């Protein structure tokens, strides 16, 4: 009951801001496109040799590519790939990074220095080199993209979690929990973790668009999703060759990447303002 009241209060504060609301609308549109789009747009691999590189028309609202495939269908299916890459890689990083950050921050005396030095090493490792290596080992695929992007996000998630844990564990309510007779596990999961959640939610809204760009980058370079599976990055690779003949082929995926990224970033900024009182101006 009261939790609901608290949520509605946050929602009211959120709703008053135009930019985060615009972000929310963009994100919802993106998710809808990814989930429902492929159901209505038809086969993204169907080729129509009578209409290759056709400009936007009634039959093909976004035009067709060099093989006569419908760009709209490919954009919709590409949204699905982007959403998967963004969400799965972020979930992966959170699932691994949050426990590591929690434990490192909570047992700061003996675990923290080791974990943080490992994180520094990871940070120093160039992401693309790692992605290339991974693609070489398991073959270029969506799975590889998710693994590479998840790994790339890991240091940030560990650092944020650890930083929050260091702050939260100094709160009197953690001391009170010790005085209550609570064990470490109980304190970590019922006291520390719930009070670290806000910045992690914000981090997720920053990480997802970064991962969407990352997926496009890897697929553009041929290290990610492979043709004929449509991905916004793959579409850009193709469009590059026909930039002067069919510029719309580059414009659509580019625009989609920009809009999806913008949406998540605006949403994230808004969430940070609402959830984290420290950033309030």
């Amino acid at each position, binding site marked *: *009951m*009261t*939790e609901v009241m*608290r949520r509605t209060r946050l929602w009211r504060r959120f709703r008053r801001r135009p930019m985060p609301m615009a972000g929310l609308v963009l994100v919802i549109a993106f998710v809808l496109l990814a989930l429902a789009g492929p159901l209505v747009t038809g086969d993204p691999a169907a080729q129509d040799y009578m209409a290759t590189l056709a400009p936007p028309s009634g039959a093909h609202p976004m035009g067709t590519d060099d093989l006569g495939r419908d760009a709209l269908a490919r954009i919709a299916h590409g949204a699905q790939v982007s959403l998967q890459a963004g969400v799965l890689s972020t979930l992966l990083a959170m699932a691994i990074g949050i426990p590591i950050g929690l434990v490192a921050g909570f047992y700061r005396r003996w675990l923290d220095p080791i974990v943080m030095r490992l994180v520094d090493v990871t940070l120093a490792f160039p992401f693309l080199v790692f992605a290339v290596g991974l693609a070489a080992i398991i073959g270029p695929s969506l799975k590889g993209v998710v693994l590479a992007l998840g790994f790339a996000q890991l240091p940030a998630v560990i650092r944020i979690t650890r930083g929050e844990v260091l702050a939260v564990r100094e*709160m*009197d*309510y953690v*001391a*009170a*929990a*010790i*005085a*209550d*007779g*609570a*064990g*470490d596990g*109980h304190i970590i999961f*019922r*006291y520390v973790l*719930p*009070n670290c959640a806000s910045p992690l939610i914000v981090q997720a809204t920053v990480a997802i668009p970064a991962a969407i760009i990352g997926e496009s980058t890897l697929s553009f370079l041929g290290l990610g999703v492979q043709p004929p599976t449509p991905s916004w990055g793959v579409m850009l690779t193709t469009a590059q060759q026909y930039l002067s003949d069919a510029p719309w082929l580059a414009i659509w995926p580019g625009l989609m990447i920009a809009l999806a990224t913008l949406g998540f970033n605006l949403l994230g900024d808004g969430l940070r303002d609402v959830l984290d009182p420290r950033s309030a101006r």
Partner: protein
Amino acid sequence: MILRIDNLVKHYGPVRAVDGLSLEIGQGEVLGLVGESGSGKSTVGKCVLRLTEPTSGSIELNGTDITHLSRRAMRPLRRDVHMVFQDPFSSLNPRFSIEQIVGEPLLRHKVCDRRETAGRVAAMLEKVGLRQEMRKRYPHELSGGQRQRVGLARALILEPKLVVADEPVSALDVSVQASVLNLITDLQRDMGFSCLFITHDLSVVEFLADRIAVMYLGRIVESGPTAEIFAQPRHPYTQALLSAAPVADPVRQRERRRIVLGGDVPSPVDPPAGCRFHTRCPLAYDECRSTEPALTDPRGAGHPAACHLVTADRVPDAAAPL
């Protein structure tokens, strides 16, 4: 003895927060531990709860030496001691309802099942003067005074033998302070727990404490029965503290001689040689600068003070410098 602290030392790096402190609290006794900020009084409380690891010395809780017990070994003993914290805004988990917060000690110690816990929580909330509809509320919906009552309920629900109250009212408005103090007094009489009441404000403990111990720079400089400390403070520091507290009687207030101490509390990183108080003491003489006075109780009156003048069986009067 419920609590016996012997020669407790706690250093945070170079900071000598507590530097050789001894005190005892008997069954059902309330000891007021008084000192300025930075005197180390809160650190004493944290050591008793083992929220921080003492550097040396010993702490005996109810006959058991807990100074260096592991966290696991300490857990069953936590039924007998709990704490009320100073800051009512950071001492309650914002994600827990009031019912969950107050019920935690019962559940952690597996005292009873969830249904009985709910009943006991309801009874405890009533004892601290909170309405039953507060049970489902969250800390941010409560006022400072209400939160402090929740903290009190949490500390008392296991009926501990000792409660450490670390400045439990100093973050509250004066009007709320009085009601929370009265509540603590009533509960203490009713439940009979011993209490280490930490405060910087002597007037807060005047009517609550059986005995008072005054701390300065990590050590006790004077201790004794509350009435005696107020009537005949021996240590010049205690005299200065008392003279700073206003008296609710205009005639007496006008007659009083105010003792104004110069300067600040010296850094606990490098406490002064000799008597720690000599840098601010209006009565300081050569001996004070070279040798540290021991706590002495000249006539065996249970009212020791650490001052060379007391040792020499003279009566220090900080209001009338030599």
